[in-house]
């Protein structure tokens, strides 16, 4: 073995090298969320089944509260389907961004003890939420079928739509991971901020009608990713309508932009994580 020269440690990595080292550590990356998942429901009787049951119970609660008790069906044909799609699609983003944001601070011990590309942590946190979202999808489609929707080819569009949203989530997960490491208070503010964005983007009711008298805000909605994610998914499943090219474009730009900005921003602090 010829002696490789000494290489300087702690320098800013080249992006290609960084991505390669992330790829080399992929087995480790998948082992962390798996271990957490295994340990999480260890002491419950139903164990991992809870991951599947949880979204079903949520849908049942919406059905009970909105369709049966409150009877809110004004202007919405399928309130349960409307809510299930809206809530699960929006939770897909909020849960991913929240656990991405926490990924560095809650793994501080790991960061302080072992060197690995730090972006692995937000990445796996967001991916873990993606797999959990798989269960929510099952519940979502069951709810939609029970309430009498007929499958059409536009249902397949949910795959690219979720893909775009995943990229978007990743970007914001990375972004907030760095912010939270530096400024931990953000973790307290983030849930409420996301909830307000959700309400304002029509997670629980059709926001369009509320904005009928505010045309200038109506224009803003066409660029609001949260609104578009929910709207396009609802249209594809409930109305068998495909998104317009413009909607595809706006969502894709948001997603790619978020990932680029989030990743580069995250990388800027690579060697400082876990320092405090």
């Amino acid at each position, binding site marked *: *073995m010829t002696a490789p020269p*000494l290489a300087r440690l702690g320098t800013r990595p080249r992006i290609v090298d960084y991505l390669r080292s992330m790829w080399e550590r992929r087995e480790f990356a998948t082992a962390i969320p798996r271990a957490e998942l295994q340990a999480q429901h260890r002491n419950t009787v139903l164990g991992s089944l809870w991951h599947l049951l949880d979204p079903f119970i949520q849908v049942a609660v919406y059905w009970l509260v909105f369709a049966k008790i409150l009877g809110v069906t004004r202007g919405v044909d399928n309130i349960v389907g409307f809510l299930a799609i809206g809530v699960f699609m929006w939770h897909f983003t909020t849960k991913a961004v929240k656990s991405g944001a926490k990924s560095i601070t809650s793994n501080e011990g790991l960061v302080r003890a072992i060197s690995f590309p730090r972006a692995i942590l937000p990445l796996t946190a967001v991916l873990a939420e993606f797999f959990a979202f798989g269960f929510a999808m099952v519940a979502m489609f069951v709810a939609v079928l029970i309430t009498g929707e007929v499958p059409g080819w536009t249902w397949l569009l949910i795959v690219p739509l979720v893909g775009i949203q995943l990229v978007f989530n990743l970007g914001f997960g990375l972004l907030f991971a760095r912010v939270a490491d530096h400024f931990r208070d953000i973790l307290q503010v983030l849930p409420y901020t996301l909830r307000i964005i959700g309400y304002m983007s029509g997670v629980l009711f059709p926001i369009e009608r509320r904005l009928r008298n505010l045309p200038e805000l109506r224009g803003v909605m066409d660029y609001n990713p949260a609104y578009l994610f929910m709207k396009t998914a609802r249209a594809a499943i409930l109305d068998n309508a495909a998104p317009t090219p413009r909607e595809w474009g706006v969502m894709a730009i948001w997603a790619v932009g978020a990932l680029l900005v989030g990743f580069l921003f995250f990388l800027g602090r690579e060697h400082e994580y876990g320092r405090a």
Partner: protein
Amino acid sequence: MPENTYLPPAAADLEFDRGVPTVRAEDVHVRYRVHEDTTKSLRAMLATFGRGRRPRHVHALKGVSFTAYAGEAIGVIGSNGSGKSTLMRAIAGLLPISEGVVSARSTPMLLGVGAVLNRGLSGRRNIMLGGLALGLTRDGVLAREKEIIEFAGIKDAIDRPMATYSSGMKARLQFAISAAVQPEILIIDEALSVGDKSFRKKSEQRVRQLREAAGTVFIVSHGMKSIRNTCTRVLWIEDGVLMADGDPDDVIARYNGHDPAERRSRRRAARRRRRRKARRRARQERESAPSG
């Protein structure tokens, strides 16, 4: 000088070249800011809002330089808070340095796998988790699993959750996982003192093996005996400054001469020895008196 932050972890079971430099620290400074938490109540916090948490600058390492070579086991000694662990974390790339350069042939591995292990999972699953964390592949961990379990001396308990382990068992498992990886550069921070006597012997043996395979091992310890047993060289750090670097016996002697507590205890020991000697002489005189 190629600049690559994430050097691949050294492949296992590999003979390293003896005598070549493996880690070099050049004038390494570490400074950081800490927020002193002086506020006591919410009211006090509100009263001093924005002014209560005054940052304080800590200069933890003040220009440390050394070069480590393949085949060396280097003991790192110094009083509590002297900067030993800071230096180790700085050369492992886990702590940003403020000034100076650290370069290495492969990323030095700090024996800190404990942070990854999950209390809720069995010892066996934790071996997988820890092994992957230290850069092994899934197959690599499986291939070493038996050896790790044996080394840790954990038999049936290996399939029980780690939450049920005694602290000695946990520490042994941790050491066994890290030692199985056989990194080119290994840093052991206060780990040789864990476990019982036979395990301590076994781990000292493992350190010697690693060193003989011409890797470089750093050992931070307050146990001068285990340092003497395993190390070929000793660095003495005090208050962020490298005080001495060289032969273990010389450096330890200087360190002992410096440390006030150590000096006190040695003086006490000397006094005890003198007293014992005096008592023995008195007894001998008493015993020899009737006959003589």
